[in-house]
């Protein structure tokens, strides 16, 4: 499978819960959750995101990164810049609904471009 997913949320529970939902439907997708601060509080952690992103990119050829609120985006962007790959796409689509759609499409071997297109069709411009 070539497209993986990274979930960046302010809440560890949200990130883990969305991962659970997706795991139930698509067992073997490269997917990681990076939710909450290092202390497990609400917030985002650059290091956590970076570590999770590395895990996904090890297994997936390309990665779609979903985030929940604006400040998560900034930390995710930094982690992506550090990773220096052009096969990582950060999108602003709804984290649960978007990641679920992307995961199912990834499981039937849709390409990164096809998945991004489906997301735009469903949720509007990212």
């Amino acid at each position: 499978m070539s497209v993986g997913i990274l979930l960046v949320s302010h809440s560890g529970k949200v990130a883990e819960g969305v991962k659970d939902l997706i795991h139930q439907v698509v067992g073997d997708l490269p997917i990681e959750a990076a939710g909450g601060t290092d202390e497990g509080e609400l917030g985002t952690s650059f290091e956590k995101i970076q570590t999770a992103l590395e895990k996904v990119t090890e297994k997936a050829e390309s990665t779609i990164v979903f985030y929940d609120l604006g400040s998560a985006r900034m930390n995710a962007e930094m982690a992506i810049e550090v990773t220096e790959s052009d096969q990582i796409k950060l999108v602003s689509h709804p984290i649960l609904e978007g990641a679920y759609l992307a995961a199912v499409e990834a499981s039937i071997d849709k390409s990164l471009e096809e998945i991004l297109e489906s997301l735009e069709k469903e949720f509007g411009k990212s």
Partner: protein
Amino acid sequence: MNVNQTAAWIQSYNQHLQEQKDYLTSLDRKIGDGDHGINMARGFAEAAKAVEAETFETSADVLKKAAMTVMSKVGGASGPLYGTALLKMSMAAKGKDVEGDVFAEMFEAAIDGIKQRGKAETGEKTMLDVWVPVLEEVKSSGFDAAIVEETAQKAMESTKDLTATKGRASYLKERSKGHLDPGAVSSYYLFASLAEALKEEA
């Protein structure tokens, strides 16, 4: 600003943040999620520790160390934003004596970084509404620490009248008016700490 003064800047800023932690958090509770003081106090406590633990050759090295720590330890929007600002200042200061026009270059680089990271402009009720007036003042009249502090304070106060269009406060739309922007207040402390640090023996 020599390397010791730069280290003193970080220490002094951390002290301000620890003292104002609750105040900053209470400001953020009004128009955000109530964690700005917690975020900043946590991140800069780590940065101050990291800076204290090493000896540095240049101001740029101090700023870089602080930047990396802040980026990974703050945990809110302010983490990437202050982290980027410090990193860009470090890059602008690299290989230079930090004085006069170099301050303008550093602030300008920081602002570019903040804008790029946060996709905000001035007038959106963010920390930029302190940084940009400071840069303009330094550009037009040259660098003077006391005037920088004063400019920052005035700019910080003027964020009260703005309507937020970026960050968490933007969800409140017109209701964000009448409150200071927490990031503008913490930015004011950064410039106040700079003035203090520069009073230290060179």
